[in-house]
């Protein structure tokens, strides 16, 4: 069935852009919290703009804008592939939203726990990796879970630029087989399956990061 291929593409797209987006989000959160004002302004503009523009527009801008930009750079017509455009667009969007989540979570960590690390002579990256990140994750996880559900659903927008994901398979099937209800219901079931899976994973993670022994 075509749906198997579509499912694979959707999962891969969500995982890759989710992972990259979290890295972007973490870096952006760190930048927003830095003492270096120009960095704060630039990254602040990024998160504000991206969160204020529809995801669909960002996808179209990157797909068509990217094609124009690369073509003019290389000197001949190059069409960027829908998957890369999708990863890039969703990474940018996911990064902007998670940056806000991570920033808020870092701010809610008690200052004293960070000072304790500094007072022992820990390097800033050790403090980030071993103290700030694990403490912040438990606070960020519920909001982060919600953002992942959105991401899984937003992958369907990439079908607009021709990526053969679940949505695309359903749309094509609905048209050619003249059975829209069947195909769209099947697609719904697949998305629901993916978001349920994400829910289970996040419940496990929340338990793992929770204050142990409760």
């Amino acid at each position, binding site marked *: 069935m075509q749906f198997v291929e579509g499912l694979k593409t959707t999962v891969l797209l969500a995982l890759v852009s989710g992972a990259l987006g979290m890295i972007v989000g973490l870096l952006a959160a760190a930048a927003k919290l830095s003492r270096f004002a120009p960095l704060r302004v630039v990254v602040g503009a990024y998160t504000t703009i991206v969160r204020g523009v529809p995801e669909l527009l960002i996808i179209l801008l990157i797909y068509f804008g990217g094609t124009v930009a690369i073509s003019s750079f290389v000197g001949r017509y190059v069409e960027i592939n829908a998957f890369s455009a999708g990863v890039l667009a969703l990474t940018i969007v996911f990064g902007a939203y998670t940056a806000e989540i991570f920033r808020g979570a870092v701010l809610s960590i008690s200052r004293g*726990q960070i000072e*304790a690390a*500094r007072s*022992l*002579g820990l*390097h800033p990256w050790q403090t980030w990796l*071993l103290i700030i990140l694990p403490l912040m994750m438990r606070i960020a996880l519920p909001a982060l879970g919600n953002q992942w559900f959105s991401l899984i659903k937003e992958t369907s927008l990439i079908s607009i630029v021709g990526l053969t994901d679940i949505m695309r398979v359903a749309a094509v099937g609905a048209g050619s087989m003249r059975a829209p209800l069947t195909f769209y219901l099947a697609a719904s079931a697949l998305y629901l399956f993916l978001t349920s899976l994400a829910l289970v994973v996040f419940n496990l993670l929340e338990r793992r990061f929770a204050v*142990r*022994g*409760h």
Partner: protein
Amino acid sequence: MRAAIATSLPESQIAPAAGGVQARGIEKRLGNVEVLRGVTLDVAAGEIVAILGSSGSGKSTFLRCVNLLTLPDRGDIWVHGEHLRLRPISERDSEPRILDHDQVRRVRASIGMVFQNFNLWPHMTVLENVSAGPVLVNRLTRKAATELGRGYLAKVGLSDKAGSYPRHLSGGQQQRVAIARALAMEPKLLLFDEPTSALDPELVGEVLRVMTALAGEGRTMMIVTHEVAFAREVSSRAAFMHQGRIEEEGSSPAFFLNPTSASLRRFLTAHDERHS
């Protein structure tokens, strides 16, 4: 040779003494408040100096300047004879800056600090809290650090809590873990920032007993505290801070028995009344 080195350095950077802590003319403004207005204090190696004062006198801020958790706006600090490289505030820079981050990390690793609110890491067990520093900063093997950690937990009487999480400990126990965490770095200097102020009265004693034991080991300690009786008992010298300055300092117990300044007399009298 020695003279040549000395003349090549600005006078302010020649260490006044080889060990301990020397602070000269420390100034700090936080917002609109001049918290420190030129604090000068020497702590010789092996000395135990208590720093007293009412809330807002600047005593905690001063202590935090010693390991640079707070950066002084102006002034010089030597720790174990090493001048801390800072850029003071100027007309161009409203914030003081650390010039040598490696030096600051190295110096911090040699200073143990115990905080008012314990500041244990809630996601680590008691033993992990204590052995993290030795592994990450002093590059001990995990095995050696665990052994070291267990040793210091035994020293503060908490061997049986090694596998517990901080949440499950009383405030007094948490503070003793925090002391073990500081000791596990085998520091040359210990800073205590109001270590019993956040504790229920019945838990104060166990923390003070651990600190008294440490004082008997010839360690260099600076203790910011409200516990006047304890300060009198353990300190070799004491300083009284008032409105961002050291109003009076002297050897214990004369400092406590014959205070010369009016503000220290008032402070000690008020304290006696509260505790009689």
